[in-house]
């Protein structure tokens, strides 16, 4: 029982990693006042760019670099539409998701002719598991040994990075001057403008950070979690990250917990497949799969707490005209 739980938590960490990166990406963007439905597209775009570059150059790190570049480029399109041209944030996000869904397949067919996939990655082209020091030696120690060797050890570097990003994000958002301004521009851009700080530049920087984090999420999917790019491999993770962002009420630590909860539900859904619970019978996998979405709707409806986003989110900023 204990071992099963540890294995499920282990799976939770792997599944939650892209959600954490993407949800933190969304946090930077939305805290600055830019709604980002395009998380999904950026993850998918980066997953493709990372897998393609890793396949060509044989290095997961170069793949990661290209993934980040692709994702930041998409974030800049979003910025160009929403900040520079005061376009609708949702429409722009939908546009990016749609373009990427088509473009990744088109380009992968052109470059690799493998029905919309990239070649299978192996060796240095993937991020491989890291065994923490003494993990094997401690494996036999009761309780702690299992937690250390199974749960904490044996993940790839991006998993650890995802968890490290949470305190880093907290620090940037709450403890730095940039973070203060970032939060201010999402609440009251007029005040920021009056203080002589460029609203547009601040928001562009938030989107660059958002792009970088989504880029890592995508690279994780195709070069660490899987061994290559598959058509539509982001499979709604961007939207789930958005749900986690709302569920965590736009704050780093609660967002992490929401991602872990959603990841855990995913691990439960896989494990519960075909399992008959005495007295209840077989729980349909779909019922567990939809829980993240149902919970988010309930939260939005105000049945479990209240989700209040940044005040100026989604509204284009127009300078007062004389």
């Amino acid at each position, binding site marked *: 029982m204990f071992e099963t739980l540890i294995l499920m938590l282990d799976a939770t960490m792997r599944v939650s990693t892209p959600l954490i990166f993407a949800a933190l990406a969304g946090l930077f963007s939305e805290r600055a006042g830019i709604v980002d439905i395009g998380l999904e597209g950026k993850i998918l775009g980066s997953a493709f760019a990372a897998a393609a570059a890793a396949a060509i150059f044989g290095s997961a790190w170069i793949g990661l670099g290209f993934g980040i570049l692709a994702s930041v480029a998409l974030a800049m399109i979003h910025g160009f539409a929403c900040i520079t*041209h005061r376009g609708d944030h949702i429409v722009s996000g939908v546009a990016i998701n749609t373009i990427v869904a088509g473009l990744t397949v088109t380009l992968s067919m052109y470059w690799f002719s493998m029905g*919309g996939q990239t070649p299978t990655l192996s060796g240095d082209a993937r991020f491989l598991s890291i065994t923490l020091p003494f993990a094997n030696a401690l494996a036999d120690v009761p309780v702690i040994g299992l937690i250390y060797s199974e749960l904490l050890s044996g993940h790839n570097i991006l998993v650890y990075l995802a968890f490290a990003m949470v305190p880093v994000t907290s620090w940037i958002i709450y403890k730095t001057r940039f973070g203060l301004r970032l939060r201010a521009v999402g609440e009251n851009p007029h005040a920021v403008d009056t203080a002589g700080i460029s609203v547009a530049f601040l928001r562009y920087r938030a989107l660059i950070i958002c792009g970088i984090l989504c880029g890592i999420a995508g690279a994780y999917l195709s070069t660490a979690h899987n061994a290559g790019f598959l058509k539509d491999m982001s499979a709604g993770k961007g939207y789930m990250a958005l749900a986690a962002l709302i569920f965590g009420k736009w704050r780093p630590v609660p967002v992490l917990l929401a991602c872990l909860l959603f990841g855990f539900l995913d691990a439960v859904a896989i494990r519960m497949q075909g399992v008959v619970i005495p007295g209840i019978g077989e729980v349909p996998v779909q019922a567990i799969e939809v829980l993240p979405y149902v919970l988010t709707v309930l939260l939005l409806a105000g049945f479990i707490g209240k989700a209040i986003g940044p005040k100026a989110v989604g509204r284009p900023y127009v300078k007062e005209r004389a």
Partner: protein
Amino acid sequence: MSQAKVPTWVSVALIPFLNIMMAFIVSGLVILAIGENPIEAAGYLIYGAFGYDEGVGYTLYYATNLIFTGLAVSVAFKGGLFNIGGEGQAYIGGLGVGLVCLALDHTMPLYVIVPLAIIGAAVFGAGWAYIPAYLQARRGSHIVITTIMFNFIASSLMVYLIVNWLKEDGRMAPNSRTFEENAWLPYLHKILSPLGIEIGDSPLNLAFVLALICCVLVWALLWHTRWGYQLRTLGTNPTAARYAGIDTAKVTIWGMLISGGLAGFVGVNEIMGVNHSLLLNFTAGYGFAGIAVSLMGRNHPIGIILAAILFGALYQGGSELAFEIPTITPEIVIVIQGLVILFSGALEHMFKDRIEGFFIRRAVA
């Protein structure tokens, strides 16, 4: 900057045309980048969509779905609501159609089943839109997020229902039994051939006529009824709408119900008209494509028909294109669709402000 001084042809023709051209130019560059000739590609595309009877039939069949989802997005949009849940509403609408057909196809004639199936689609589609609508109107939950969540919930629900309850016994394929022929919506080529009009075989069916009727109804509802006026007022200026005594919550909910019902009609075309059984993922992205259609059609039924035919042509022509030039996949159509959303939606101000400014300056001078 007052809108009134800008000539009508500029805002209804020139600016949309420029936006679409930008989308096509960028798509052309993509095709060029993968080493193919965009002009040649466009040639195959146009031939595939309009060059022969069957092609035209397929184009209009795709357009049927897009008219439904385009209208759905635009009705909500007129009320200032972004219904991104067309995909889920269409999916559940299809469930309504499927249940009616499965229940009645052994006992009832077609003329009884058709109206009931249409009602089933509308009720189920609208029902799926009701919860997000209610939460938006009464509890202030953001409709974009809730409708996205409902798309995922719809998808899981349909997998559950089809795999566990509606699947044909002893079969592996996740779809229901095929309906008896008296629950098939007639194909247009079968209706027209006794009248001496021969058109090629295609999935084009009576749902296309339903789509055109919906266009007329939506036009009448939005621009010629009191409720339509209230919805448009709400969309233009919610504060003014409240001060004018409009029950904004009620108008919001009804706007979303109509939107969801329209999206549900995709089920009539797909389930009753073409597939003749309830199956997974028949919505195939039409809900999202509806956003592009409504943006391009400028939220007006006539514009939506034109935009739906254009996108239908892209879908159909895209398959032809992929057949003729194998390096180009049908997914290129999705890229074009996304670029249309980008240029005529997100970047709409890019040309608009400058061109309108130009015409206003000229009018003043």
